[in-house]
């Protein structure tokens, strides 16, 4: 296990608005993210200074019928003729793209590169999106059995509940928290708390003269099958990240040139990645992701830091149970105690360990191939003190945790101001 041969810093970061955009293709989405990243470089940068593009994308083959998205996006944003490539590791695609960009700069092969991701998912109906997402699981053995992505994380949830007594209410609290954060993020797909969504439903019922639901709080709302239908037991609609269009872009520079671009670079001090079987049935345990533990261990070792040193983290909450498992795998809480930590408010913005201040995948949205690099956008803003209404005071060390599939890939990065 190694270390970076030279320091690498984030010098710019940006993302498109996340949501459902029938009038946009991947080209416009990525351009939107890139232009924001480009303009965020404090002292300015020229496109010709960006030497390569590492682009995360999961399944544009099916979503848009367009592959070869690396050079396509490089052309759109004017950074050809340097190397440009698409990286696919399911939902970890742009987290892995980030790692490859970091390694390319650290190796000395490049001084400045762009890493990012893009996904355009809303062209297809939900059952087809379900098919595409399920192809990140074992297509020979899990898919024919009827596994869907919510179904796989539901299997993890049921195993976690059985082993540790984790409660569905604790899962719902993850969603409530992440929606509260997303309400403060102008880029989020859902800029509303679950309480706001509940109130809007009540007002709508009143306006239409329909029976007015009498939910007393958001937990009652989330327990109502009419408001929060089951997707894959025990996961309900508000346990699942949405289907999203969006893009993200991050500009990396070698430490020795970073200060030319900004007085406030954010250093990448740790990177780690792990792998595991695609199929859950090929693993010994379902309540923890080994790939995540491996990735975290390596990132902590490289950074010379421990879980207690991390002040803020963006973790892969594709489903609410995934956030609970993530906070255990990262060592923030002991195995089985992630649910309790949410219940105690430890992961809120004002808690000991703020998690997913961006709204997470749950509320910000989950354009699969763009999510890993979008996590970096939030950490970049937070560590620079530029996160606006959702700013956590005086944070200097942040972490991103990006998972592919049901845990066959995981990549963890640690950043320091």
């Amino acid at each position, binding site marked *: 296990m190694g270390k970076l041969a030279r320091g690498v810093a984030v010098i710019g970061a940006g993302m498109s608005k996340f949501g459902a955009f029938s009038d946009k293709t991947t080209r416009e989405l990525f351009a939107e993210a890139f232009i924001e990243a480009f303009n965020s470089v404090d002292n300015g940068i020229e496109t010709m200074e960006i030497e390569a593009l590492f682009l995360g994308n999961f399944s544009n083959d099916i979503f848009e019928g367009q592959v070869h998205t690396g050079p396509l996006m490089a052309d759109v944003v004017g950074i050809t003729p340097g190397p440009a490539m698409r990286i696919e590791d399911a939902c970890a695609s742009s987290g892995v793209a980030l790692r490859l960009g970091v390694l390319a700069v650290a190796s000395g092969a490049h001084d400045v590169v762009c890493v990012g991701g893009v996904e355009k998912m809303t062209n297809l109906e*939900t*059952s*087809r999106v*379900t*098919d595409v997402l*399920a192809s990140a699981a*074992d297509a*020979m*053995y*899990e*898919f*024919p*059995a*009827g*596994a*869907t992505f*919510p*179904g*796989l994380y*539901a*299997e*993890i949830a*049921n*195993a976690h509940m*059985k082993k540790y007594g984790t409660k569905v209410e604790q899962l719902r609290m993850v969603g409530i928290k992440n929606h509260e954060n997303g309400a403060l993020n102008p880029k989020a797909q859902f800029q509303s708390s679950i309480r706001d969504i509940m109130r809007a439903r009540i007002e709508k019922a009143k306006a239409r003269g329909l029976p007015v639901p009498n939910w007393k709080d958001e937990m009652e709302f989330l327990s109502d099958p009419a408001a929060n*239908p*089951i*997707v*894959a*037991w*025990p*996961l309900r609609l508000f346990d699942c990240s949405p289907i999203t269009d969006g893009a993200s872009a991050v500009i990396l520079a070698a430490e020795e040139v970073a200060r030319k671009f900004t007085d406030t670079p954010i250093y990448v001090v740790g990177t780690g990645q792990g792998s595991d079987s695609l*199929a*859950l*049935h*090929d693993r010994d345990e*379902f309540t923890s992701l080994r790939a995540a533990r491996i990735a975290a261990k390596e990132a902590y070792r490289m950074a010379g830091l421990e879980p207690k040193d991390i002040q803020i983290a963006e973790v892969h909450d594709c489903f609410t149970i995934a956030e609970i498992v993530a906070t255990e795998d990262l060592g923030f809480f002991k195995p089985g105690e992630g649910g309790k930590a949410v219940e105690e408010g430890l992961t809120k913005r004002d808690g000991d360990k703020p998690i997913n201040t961006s709204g997470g995948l749950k509320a910000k949205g989950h354009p699969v191939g763009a999510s890993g690099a979008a996590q970096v956008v939030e950490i970049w803003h937070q560590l620079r003190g530029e996160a606006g209404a959702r700013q956590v005071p005086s944070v200097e060390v942040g972490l991103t945790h990006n998972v592919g599939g049901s845990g066959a890939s995981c990549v963890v990065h640690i950043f320091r101001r």
Partner: protein
Amino acid sequence: MSASEFTVSRFREFLSKRKIMAAKCKKCGTVNLPPRPMCKKCHGTELEWVELNGKGKLVTFSVVYVPPTSLVAEGYGREKPYAFGVVDLGQGAKITARLTGFDVERPESIRLGINVEAEFLERDGKMILAFKPA
């Protein structure tokens, strides 16, 4: 190293004859289910087919209300959910399969760890592995 016969298509051929076949490692004895060309434990390539008796325990499961297109075609959906899960067939052999005979209307009644036995479902000329409460 010779080309392996421990393929997905052979597994499916056996399944069509209502047999669950695994690749047992001649070196370390690991029962590799689903079969694979290299032993998942010792990475050896000397394997032999063994038939499993189809009796196992339910490790975990879900009941799916939002199916992929292939199960929409079978008539499943919000009004007609289906269950699937992971079954442990002993000796470390686990597989994902459809679950039948469970009360999917009351998923909270489905208990992990219960005994299950194999069933073989024919769908569009293909055999799908399923398990029902034993």
